[in-house]
């Protein structure tokens, strides 16, 4: 009887179609994705900026989170801190060196699920020509159908980068040696 139940439940499980890994394109078209950063100004306040142009996609499987993948390409020339002279300086060799390194990329390597909807997203970040493994503390925000016949899933993640690690050696002071990178991506299922 027990065996029969087990067999039946196994058969039932097999019959249920496994939630499939689906591919998503990050919704940059509708600007429902953001690559933002904040860095301390003198240790007294935050300076916020963002990259306006980027693209990427991810594959996501709710049942097999660790098999999910994401890749993101950022146009470093699109850095925007709401100040033309500062942005010019950020694009220069003192910071992002965009004429030499017009692209920054992030390619995930591993996902470690954590409590609830949170997970650690490991990957290689290439910035200013330097590739380093970073860990993004990420969280699934939600998924479901949208009002226009599509299906969307959204995530947010944050990580802290040390500027010197990416060969950005301009001294902004002791409070500003690191920058916090905040990513919010909403994907539309392909």
């Amino acid at each position, binding site marked *: 009887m027990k065996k029969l139940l087990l067999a039946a439940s196994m058969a039932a499980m097999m019959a249920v179609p496994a939630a499939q890994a689906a591919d998503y394109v990050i919704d940059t078209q509708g600007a429902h994705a953001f690559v933002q950063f904040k860095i301390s100004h003198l240790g007294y306040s935050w300076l916020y900026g963002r990259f306006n142009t980027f693209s990427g996609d991810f594959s996501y499987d709710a049942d097999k989170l660790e098999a999910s993948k994401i890749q993101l390409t950022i146009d470093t*020339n699109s850095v925007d801190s*709401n*100040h*033309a*002279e500062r*942005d*010019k300086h950020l*694009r220069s060799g003192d910071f992002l060196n965009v004429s030499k390194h017009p692209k920054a990329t992030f390619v995930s390597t591993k996902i470690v699920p954590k409590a609830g909807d949170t997970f650690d997203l490991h990957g290689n970040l290439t910035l200013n020509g330097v590739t380093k493994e970073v860990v993004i503390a990420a969280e699934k925000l939600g998924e479901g159908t949208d009002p226009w016949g599509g299906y969307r899933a959204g995530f947010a993640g944050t990580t802290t980068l040390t500027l010197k690690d990416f060969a950005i050696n*301009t*001294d*902004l*002071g002791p409070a500003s040696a690191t920058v916090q990178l905040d990513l919010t991506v909403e994907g539309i299922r392909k």
Partner: protein
Amino acid sequence: MLKNSSSHYGLVSVVLHWLVALTVFGLFGVGFWMVDLSYYSEWYRTAPYWHKSVGILLAIAMLLRLLWRFLSPPPTALASHKSWEKRTSAVVQFCLYLGIFMLVLSGYLISTEDGRPIAVFTWFEVPALGALFANQADIAGLVHEYVAYSLIALAVLHGLAALKHHFIDKDNTLKRMFGRKP
């Protein structure tokens, strides 16, 4: 006294000429120095603020100079000047005027891409036109840099030519620029 005559420069032209000369070299020096200031330099904010303020004042002085050229045309060249000297100096002087206006314009375009006005000390602000073309601050920045070097090279040539007239030709070209009557 104030106006130019056919043979000598009046006070207005003399003062404007030397004021502009001093300002151009001063702005070049400050500009050359300030772009490499570290973030914690006490000049990091002050130097660009002064550079921009003085740059706008220079633009006003140059507009006055242009206007004055029409109101009171400069004296004719000395009879001893050779025709190639006259031609060359006219081209160089035209380029000096052009260079200064290009510097003012490119400087303006760097600072105003984000729509922020340019403050001239605490006296007044020059309104911004915002972004007029893509990569405005970067392109204008490059133009500003190259034109600045070219202008200084031309100004040095202009000065050397004046010294040549003074010491080699021993004519009144340089003295006239100090308002000396022939």
